[in-house]
């Protein structure tokens, strides 16, 4: 356990000094600042006003940015470290492979999750000071959603890093994964379903298997509990899970996907050549 925390601490310090982290923090801090600046707490959509409106917009933007950011930066730094000889040296020290791999994940998870969470927390603190009502249930669920989103894409990123033998290959693969997930978002699935190219059952299954879509639907469900914007798919989802059930599924499935990906990545990592 001591080795794991040492490795995690090492990864945190390395990340804090990396440019990607500075940009990453700036992007999410900037989003919240801009949302306040543009007076989003004053606007009204679907009956939502105040901080809940800001949180809904923030989570939508985060869903667009966080996955690709986490995927690319994870594979770049892990595969890049391996190419640059960092692994050759640090893995010559007496650290177990499990402590090394999971320590890297823990360290990276902290630096990936904290900025998005702190940006949201900052918005809540500001709202409290400004006397705006804070929707604590929504804040709690969105925090869990962000935590799971970071876990899911970090796990996938570590899997890609373990498989790819060069930074270029790892970046290409990460980008492809993200593109495939984008392709299977609801709008495109609805399109092919309307054209009769896939059965409705298959389209819904693909949507439920796609973590991006799962996050999107869960975020929508908070301000549109009947999922009216999703059309007929909403019947399947709500019949299958129920509103509360889907909220649980939206946390459990991506978390499981992240853990399974990371675990597979770990076994591939320890089985092959390390540097």
């Amino acid at each position, binding site marked *: 356990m*001591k*080795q794991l925390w*040492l490795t995690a*601490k*090492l990864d945190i*310090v*390395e990340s804090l*000094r*990396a440019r990607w982290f500075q940009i990453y923090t700036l992007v999410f801090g900037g989003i919240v600042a801009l949302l306040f600046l543009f007076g989003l707490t004053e606007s009204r959509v679907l009956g939502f006003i105040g901080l809940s409106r800001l949180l809904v917009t923030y989570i939508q933007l985060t869903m667009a940015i966080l996955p690709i950011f986490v995927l690319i930066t994870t594979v770049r730094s892990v595969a890049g470290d391996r190419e*640059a*000889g*960092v*692994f*050759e*040296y*640090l*893995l*010559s*020290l*007496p*650290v*177990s*492979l499990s402590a090394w791999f999971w320590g890297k994940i823990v360290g990276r998870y902290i630096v990936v999750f904290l900025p998005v969470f702190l940006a949201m927390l900052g918005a809540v603190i500001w709202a409290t000071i400004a006397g705006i009502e804070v929707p604590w249930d929504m804040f709690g669920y969105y925090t869990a959603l962000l935590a799971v989103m970071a876990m899911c894409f970090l796990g996938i990123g570590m899997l890609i890093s373990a498989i790819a033998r060069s930074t270029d290959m790892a970046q290409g693969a990460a980008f492809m994964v993200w593109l495939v997930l984008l392709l299977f978002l609801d709008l495109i699935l609805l399109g092919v379903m309307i054209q009769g190219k896939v059965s409705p059952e298959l389209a819904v299954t693909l949507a439920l298997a796609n973590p991006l879509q799962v996050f999107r639907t869960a975020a929508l469900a908070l301000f549109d509990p009947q999922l009216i914007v999703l059309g007929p798919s909403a019947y399947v989802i709500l019949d299958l899970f129920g509103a509360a059930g889907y909220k649980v599924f939206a946390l459990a499935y991506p978390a499981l996907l992240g853990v399974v990906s990371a675990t597979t990545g770990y076994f591939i990592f320890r*089985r*092959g*050549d*390390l*540097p």
Partner: protein
Amino acid sequence: MIQFTQVVKNFRGARVLDGISLDIAIGERIALIGSNGAGKTTLIRCLLGEYTYDGSVAINGLDPRSNRTAVLGKIGFVPQLPPPLKMPVGQLIDFSASLCGTDPARIHAIARRLGLDVDAILTRQFVRLSGGMKQKLLIAIALGRDAQVLVMDEPAANLDPEARKIFFDLLAERLDNATMIISSHRLDEVSSLVNRVVEMDMGKIVLDDKVADDVSLTGTLAVRIALKRFEPAFAKALDGWSIASSDADRLEWSGHIAGPDRLRFLGIVSRYTALVSDLSLSES
């Protein structure tokens, strides 16, 4: 102590290690030499448990791949190219010391002996240090613990003569209780440090020979050089070895060099042979 038995390593169908068998006893100092692509780095990485391979590698009977922490706890490693670590020097020392179960003060002390002012660079990023400073720090981390095996890839390449002398002294302190594997492209760089030479070519061992162990790691040689005429470039080179002129015309030069550095020093002098009218090296 270290046993390689029929070690074979392939990279995408290309055979990089071709049935290497080698026994290394405690106290042996091996020069692992060979041209680029001979398989030296691959062999070292197999020893460090970083590569998978066919055959077996054992250190004190333990496989470095399946007993990583036990085996690597006994190995001090200095890579040829320092890793581009962004972490501060202080954290690198603490991290290594903590994993290796040693006191960071030991690493600090060795770094200071090598001429590195550690306290002044504790908060500086490792990657921002000069090549020589990185090398000194990595040597200090490898030697600042009770390693039974020292694996060093061109360890003294970036060191100045003064630091090289101290480095040789540090190695001499480990002669009785450590095995050393020193990898280099050129034998003359490491010949005086070792008592056995293993040369590799195309993934095979093509030479395995004991060498005369007459050169003391801690010994020094008194140097005297007389020049026919003054040459600024040669004077600068001698100055780098702390050899000073003793006359107004700067034709007579004298000083001391580390015993194991004799071949390297003669290599420098050989570039200016036409200028040298007299040269003596005597053990002091």
